């Protein structure tokens, strides 16, 4: 039986908004040292640190606003990989596996879990400790790989998907771009506000509907 692993994050990095979003899973707020321990479903703590650092280079926290670290993107990816998506439950995986034209997309046998394991090895166990410039160079050297393309797509997904999936903590991604979240109606607004930004305060699906959602990653893989 696998030992339960946790990702320890400084609470300050998450802007104090983590409590609500991660309420779906038991977690501990260590008041004494100001850290949050999030139970991991797929990664080891060491792997999560490597992926977390790589996501932060793809979508950095900077003067333009929060990034992958504050949004909890690595937690999002961890849950996706643990779920049916990570196991390729909904991809056609019968052989033979043959190389084909780019117009036929990814034809490989590896599922996203295996691709991440290979990618983590390629990034190196000390990736999170490398200087930022060295991290960027390393990722640039991997840009063409299937792993990097998944990682880049997953980072954007973790920034802007509904917080039920573990990322976009405290709706931080939606606040960044002014997306109000799912709403029942824009009947009075769809043909108004022409030429001016209209940015209602964001809310998540569970906040709007007032009941728990069933994200696909919670289905048995």
């Amino acid at each position: 039986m696998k030992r339960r692993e946790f990702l320890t994050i400084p609470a300050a990095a998450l802007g104090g908004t983590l409590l609500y979003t991660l309420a779906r899973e038991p977690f501990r707020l260590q008041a004494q040292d100001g850290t949050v321990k999030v139970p991991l479903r797929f990664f080891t703590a060491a792997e999560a640190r490597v992926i977390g650092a790589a996501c932060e280079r793809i979508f950095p926290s900077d003067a333009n606003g929060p990034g992958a670290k504050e949004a909890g993107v690595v937690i999002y990816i961890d849950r996706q990989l643990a779920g049916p998506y990570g196991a390729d439950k909904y991809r056609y995986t019968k052989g033979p596996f043959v190389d084909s034209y780019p117009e036929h997309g990814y034809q490989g046998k590896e599922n996203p879990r295996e691709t991440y394991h290979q990618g983590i090895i390629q990034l190196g166990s000390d990736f999170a400790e490398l200087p930022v410039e060295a991290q960027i160079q390393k990722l640039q050297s991997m840009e063409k790989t299937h792993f990097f393309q998944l990682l880049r797509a997953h980072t954007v997904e973790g920034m802007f998907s509904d917080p039920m999936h573990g990322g976009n903590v405290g709706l931080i991604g939606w606040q960044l771009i002014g997306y109000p979240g799912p709403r029942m109606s824009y009947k009075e607004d769809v043909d108004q506000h022409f030429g001016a930004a209209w940015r209602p305060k964001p809310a998540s699906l569970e906040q709007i509907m007032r009941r728990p959602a069933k994200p696909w990653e919670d289905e048995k893989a």
Partner: protein
Amino acid sequence: MTNLKPVDVAIVGGGWTGLAMAKELVSRTSLNVLALERGKPQSIADYAMDMDELDYNIRLRMMQNIAEETVTHRHSARDAAVPVRQYGSFHPGTGVGGAGEHWTGMCFRFLPDVFTLRTHLTEKHGAARLPADLAVKDWGVTYDQLEPHYWYAEQMMGVSGKAGNLRGKLIDGGNIFESPRSHEYPTPPLKHSYASHLFEEATRQLGYHPYPTPAANLSENYTNPDGVTRPACAYCGYCSRFGCMIGAKSQPTNTLMPVLRKHKSFQLRTGSWVRRIVHENGRATGVQFTDANGEEFFQPAETVVLASFTLNNSRLLYLSKIGTPYDPAAGKGTLGRNLTHQVEGGIRIFFDKPLNAFMGAGSLGRRISDFDGDHGLTGSDGLLRYGMLSLNGNGDLPIGAFGAIPPGSTKSNWGAEWKAASLQWHDRVAQLNMYGEHMAYRQNYIDLDPTYTDKFGDPLLRFTLDWTDHEHKQREFAYELAAKIAPAMGAKIDPTRPSRARYNVINYQSTHIQGGVVMGATPDASVVNPYLQHWDVPNLWVIGASSFPQTASGNPTLTVLALTFWAADAMIDKYLKHPGRLV
């Protein structure tokens, strides 16, 4: 294999066509009708919690499970085909309602000349000037014959729009290039967005004739002739790839199922995967299916209606060994011929103002048909048919919309510089969408794959399809048109001109892949007759966009429904009285 009690009519597929046919049969006859659907039950109550871009728009939670069955693709008969391992250039739905649950809701009537395209092109250009590999055909049915059925389908859904040609009278503000309509639309046009208003003003200023996209999203509360009442659209933006949580978007579950549920003579069996149409001596005897537990059944039936997704109609006929497979080299055989995929594509345009594009509805927007069919084309440059250009406001969602920046703005598509540019351009990007006719060619067709199989071990369908010079010309024409319209809207067009890229199975194009079981006036060049009755097996009817000999520029659903009602009339008024070949 368990033998079940016989039914009068067994329908394969519980989507738009199967349930529409069922509704006509149980409302107008005393026959008992069974629909077999391989997916699960679905209803409005299931859709309230699906406003989630990740699971529904990106992971495609409403689509058929591609792990169980997919298709294989190759660009030409010289290539080896490989499976489409993930969606995909089209999105087959599953469950009750099928793709009619997650569709966008655009409702076009086709132009009269689409139905007689072979005759039309030959008369206009001369046979010698048409491409040698052109396989377009006349349908064996005309627009005038279908008009009452179009109107019937529009009323069933409550289509919103504005007529531009009412019994020959042209009306400003509607589509003056459309086929003549006998009635105004059942409901008025939807409200529309900022970008759509800019498109309307710009195209009018340029001398074109913008009109509201006809939409199956209700613009006001509506009760249809069957007595089904549904509410007006709320413009939430969760339309395409989602089920509508309030029932404003017409779906089989909110228009047909409320009627069907009232009839004891109708039965719907979900989790039932039809794998063969059983036949002997030129008659279908029933269908063989496997249920969700893997148990096998034989369902005897007097009449079988094959009404599954376009491609699966062809596949089931192949697997059941019904009809003559098409051989493109010899130009013989009919099953699998005339495969087409509506030519769609988006051209990005960039604004210096925010658009609030997160609000919208599937078919919200304006479009022009000034170059639909061959209006405004000479054909001298080899462009025989074009289509429409539109601005759609179906609601931008945050993951998909992020990162749309003018090409060349940043060196990389990740990192600090890319993030800054993406934030700067966010909500300042729209698309001009082209909708082109895809003519049929001899080399584009469907057969069975020799290597890959589904979860039962049955061969997958293989499609052989690539773009020809004509589709590239259509895309280039659309770009030139967009390049005129964008500046008039105060926007800058993406300078990336259309590449002459090959058919791509990964980038979503539209779910409007068509043909394979085409209709026609004679059995030598079609699989079903003009009433959608199989030429060789008269108690088998095959309905859906599989019957289209070529695509029009418009999305197919409304025409699919009109043809279904046309076929239902023939079956009920003629065939059931004197079972046998109607032609």
